[in-house]
């Protein structure tokens, strides 16, 4: 037993040591054991074996380190012997490692890191999906889901609100607020750091609900991190709210951040089920839930769907084809960006492979020059294992130097990503250069070293016993098999470059198509800013009085804005096109009413004030726009877009027809004009039905409007005078989100543009590597076949035949690589279909362009070596031989 253990332990020693001394060690122990005697021999023998085994275990690392030190010294000297080779390989590897490590850091922060909630994988969103796209739900529906479903340990509803903080030394500040039902903090699994969560009583209509929990950032900014803020009554838009809690520092509430405009405070929902806005068809609440342990998403979806189906039976006029869609929060937030991140990740992996293939080619050239050295060492008794170990150390050293060099560019790349990365990429701010990034770079170095180190090892070990190698012939010419390996490597790197180049081509065409889409508005020269009308003076009197007060506020502001120099049109709108703001209503047409009102299509509603169509350059296609005739108390009017005419009115003139928004019993509005479609929901999505109403004629006050001003000059130059106008009218009304409309439009394509630009950089690098690799291989081939070419020329071969021979031997692997890489790219793009717009993965122009570019670049790389070969002087080359 002891002997067996020792034999096994001896394997931990390096082969070199083992071959020389393992038998000696075993013999020495056997000698010692023979001398043991007496009754305690058995125990002493076991102690001897164990002590020796332990001693060998302790000795082994030192022996390995000894060999590694020697191999590293040898490898370092070998690299210093050919510094150009080494520097090229290290720089190329460093770039690939940096790209991979930084991409890993992005994917790690954006996709892989768990959401900042307790057991985040059990958090879901529940959406009604019966009417097409899944969307929010009405309060009464939420109450029924909460009581009738069995799959959730907590179910909450949330909506957005805003609060204006005034007082103190700071300017008035508007912050977004989440109104949430009482279980919100139980649901997310994170409670306030200071104070408490909401009570049941506070989630009721009335004054009791006027409590607030602050985010840590707001507490520090607005209240100087004063713990005495608890219990303090703060004036929020003229309404007193009592602060009852402060959330922990670093609590990153993605729900608040991504869905509620970085909400910085929470208040109870406090809905009255009898309120008009609490109805089943008043679908404006998002529902979130925590799954009970062991309940799957599919089971929860079936449970919620069953409840909705039952509700449809009980309230047939409120549901159409009810279905619930349950998604994890991870899928909700990260699902849309996953393809973009994965495409980029795939891109860097391909780049790494191209790099490895090229470094392998480089090492192969170097290995050809070392066959004699390796053969001599083999002849001197150096074992195969020992040779592999030394060659692996050389590859490892190259990888390690690449990894160390990659850290600085990786840090820079991450800095650039944080600075210029697309704003709609969640958790971009969490992207950091940390220990995990460094570990990723080192892991990549290890894997890469195995990849690029393998080819030269195989070549050298095959050659080590060759008599030619010992004579020194091996250093001058390589065999057919070696050339095949090199050609295969070139073809491989071209194929990989083709994948990236083709992918980039298709994405470029996709983005170009997207950018060419008519948004339906003219964004240049337009400034946008959100202006809120909040406070006691807008809450006085009945709803009609509030509507009038709010409308008067905006009208005055727009009148003053129009008087500013350079302003050509000024208007305000409830939902800015291509922003995330949406306001959907059922679109009911008199004479075309459906049996179930829920079967009516949805329309995006825009309440507008001022000359909105002129400000945004939306054309009037038929009829007229709004004017002074459409004020409060006049006949309610509406404008519809072209898509509404096509999809609802069958292309017939709708002017004079009446529409009701929300319910069939709502106020009928006469259509007075048809306007062009605006791609409100995104350039890549159809406009859908759009309806415009005068703000002053809407039944409820629209207190948050986006002001849009068209100017002759630079839009941002208008920001200060416009802020001054608002301050002059009411200094308590904050102005936020000041940005040119062109930026708003550009932001909708930012992820696609970012992916395309980064992939284009990767593709350029990959093509460059492939071309340089091809050039290197051909140059070596010409150098090694100098004598043979000289003989051919001496025997009468024509120079152009030699040129063609070399040229074709270079172009062949390029054609092979392109033939493999381009179809592979089409397959890969199939998985990233959601990033494409208006083009298919097999987009013929992109495929043709990528193939042509690759073949052109490859052919260009062959020209110089081919010409050099054709100019070889036979006499000189033969003399050299």
């Amino acid at each position: 037993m002891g002997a067996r253990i020792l034999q096994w332990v001896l394997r931990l020693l390096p082969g070199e040591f083992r071959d020389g001394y393992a038998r000696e060690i075993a013999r020495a122990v056997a000698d010692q054991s023979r001398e043991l005697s007496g009754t305690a021999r058995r125990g002493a023998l076991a102690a001897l074996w164990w002590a020796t085994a332990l001693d060998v275990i302790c000795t082994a690392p030192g022996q390995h380190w000894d060999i590694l030190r020697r191999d590293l010294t040898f490898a370092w000297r070998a690299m210093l012997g050919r510094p150009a080779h080494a520097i090229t390989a290290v720089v190329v590897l460093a770039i690939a490692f940096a790209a991979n490590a930084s991409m890993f850091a992005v994917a790690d922060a954006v996709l892989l890191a768990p959401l900042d909630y307790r057991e985040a994988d059990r958090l879901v969103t529940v959406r009604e999906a019966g009417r097409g796209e899944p969307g929010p739900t009405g309060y009464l529906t939420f109450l029924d889901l909460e009581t009738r479903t069995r799959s959730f340990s907590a179910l909450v509803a949330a909506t957005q609100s805003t609060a204006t903080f005034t007082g103190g030394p700071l300017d008035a500040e508007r912050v977004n607020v989440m109104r949430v039902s009482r279980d919100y903090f139980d649901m997310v699994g994170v409670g306030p750091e200071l104070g408490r969560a909401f009570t049941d009583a506070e989630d009721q209509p009335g004054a009791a609900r006027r409590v607030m929990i602050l985010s840590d950032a707001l507490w520090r900014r607005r209240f100087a991190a004063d713990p005495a803020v608890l219990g303090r009554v703060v004036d929020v838009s003229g309404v007193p709210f009592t602060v009852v809690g402060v959330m922990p520092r670093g609590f990153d509430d993605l729900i608040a951040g991504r869905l509620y405009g970085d909400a910085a405070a929470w208040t109870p929902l406090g809905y009255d089920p009898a309120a008009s806005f609490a109805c089943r068809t008043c679908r404006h609440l998002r529902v979130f839930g925590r799954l009970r342990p062991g309940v799957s998403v599919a089971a929860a979806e079936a449970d919620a769907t069953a409840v909705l189906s039952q509700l449809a039976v009980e309230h047939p006029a409120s549901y159409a084809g009810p279905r619930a869609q349950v998604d994890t929060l991870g899928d909700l937030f990260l699902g849309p960006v996953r393809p973009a991140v994965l495409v980029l990740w795939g891109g860097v992996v391909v780049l790494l492979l191209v790099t490895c293939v090229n470094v392998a080619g480089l090492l192969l050239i170097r290995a050809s020059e070392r066959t004699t050295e390796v053969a001599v060492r083999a002849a001197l008794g150096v074992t195969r294992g020992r040779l592999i170990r030394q060659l692996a150390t050389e590859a490892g050293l190259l990888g390690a130097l690449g990894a160390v060099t990659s850290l600085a560019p990786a840090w820079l790349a991450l800095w650039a990503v944080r600075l210029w990365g697309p704003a709609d990429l969640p958790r971009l701010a969490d992207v950091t250069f940390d220990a995990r990034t460094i570990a990723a770079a080192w892991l990549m170095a290890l894997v890469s070293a195995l990849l690029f180190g393998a080819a030269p090892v195989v070549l050298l070990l095959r050659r080590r016993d060759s008599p030619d190698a010992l004579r020194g012939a091996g250093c001058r010419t390589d065999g057919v098999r070696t050339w095949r390996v090199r050609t295969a490597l070139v073809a491989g790197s071209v194929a990989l470059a083709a994948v990236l180049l083709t992918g980039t081509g298709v994405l470029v065409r996709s983005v170009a198509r997207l950018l060419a889409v008519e948004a339906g508005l003219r964004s240049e020269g337009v400034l946008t800013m959100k202006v809120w009308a909040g406070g006691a003076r807008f809450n006085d009197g009945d709803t009609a009085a509030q509507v009038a007060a709010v409308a008067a506020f905006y009208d005055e502001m727009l009148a003053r804005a129009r008087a500013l120099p350079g302003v050509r049109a000024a208007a305000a709108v409830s939902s800015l096109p291509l922003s995330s703001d949406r306001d959907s209503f059922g679109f009911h047409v008199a004479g075309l009413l459906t049996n179930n009102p829920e079967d009516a299509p949805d329309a995006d509603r825009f309440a507008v004030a001022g000359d909105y169509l002129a400000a945004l350059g939306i054309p009037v296609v038929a009829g007229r726009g709004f004017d002074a005739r459409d004020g409060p108390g006049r006949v309610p009017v509406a404008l519809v877009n072209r898509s509404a005419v096509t999809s609802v009115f069958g292309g017939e003139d709708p002017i004079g027809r009446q529409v009701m928004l929300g319910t069939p019993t709502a106020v009928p509005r006469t259509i007075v004009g048809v306007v062009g479609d605006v791609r409100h929901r995104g350039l890549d999505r159809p406009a859908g039905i759009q309806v415009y109403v005068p703000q002053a004629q809407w039944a409820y006050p629209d207190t948050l409007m986006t002001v849009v001003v068209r100017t002759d000059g630079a839009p941002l130059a208008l920001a200060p005078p416009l802020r001054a106008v608002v301050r002059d009218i009411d200094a308590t009304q904050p102005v936020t989100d000041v940005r040119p409309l062109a930026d708003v439009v550009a932001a909708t394509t930012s992820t696609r543009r970012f992916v395309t630009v980064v992939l284009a950089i990767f593709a350029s690098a990959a093509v460059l590597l492939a071309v340089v690799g091809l050039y290197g291989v051909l140059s070596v081939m010409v150098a090694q076949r100098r004598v043979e070419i000289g003989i051919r020329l001496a025997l009468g071969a024509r120079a152009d035949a030699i040129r063609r021979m070399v040229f074709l031997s270079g172009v062949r692997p390029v054609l092979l690589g392109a033939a493999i890489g381009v179809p592979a790219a089409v397959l890969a793009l199939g998985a990233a279909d959601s990033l494409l717009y208006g083009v298919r993965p097999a987009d013929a122009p992109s495929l043709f362009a990528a193939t042509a570019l690759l073949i052109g670049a490859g052919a260009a790389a062959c020209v110089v070596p081919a010409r050099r070969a054709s100019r070889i002087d036979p006499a000189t080359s033969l003399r050299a031989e």
Partner: protein
Amino acid sequence: MTRMGRFDPAVYLPLTPAMFQVLVALADGEKHGYAIIKEVSRRTDGAVHLRAGTLYAVVKRFVDDGLIAESAERPDPALDDERRRYYRLTDHGRSVARAEARRMAETLAQARAKLGTI
């Protein structure tokens, strides 16, 4: 280790106790591994007990550095296992052992000067 072509034993100093004992054990003639272990144990009254792994790690290093060499001569096969490998001290090895002994003696003298008789 040679510097400017001349062997300098100081490069190897200080030796570990195991290394020193191996050199000393071979000072009076060539020995095989187990004999070295026994000799060290006997001479130090069991205070230093070399394990086989440690011994051969030292042996390998000394052979690589030329301080000891594998002996080509074998004893009478009737007296010993002919497969055993015997090691002998080289001149360089002897210089290193002496240099280490001197170093230890100087250290001991310095300690005595400071601490008195010990």
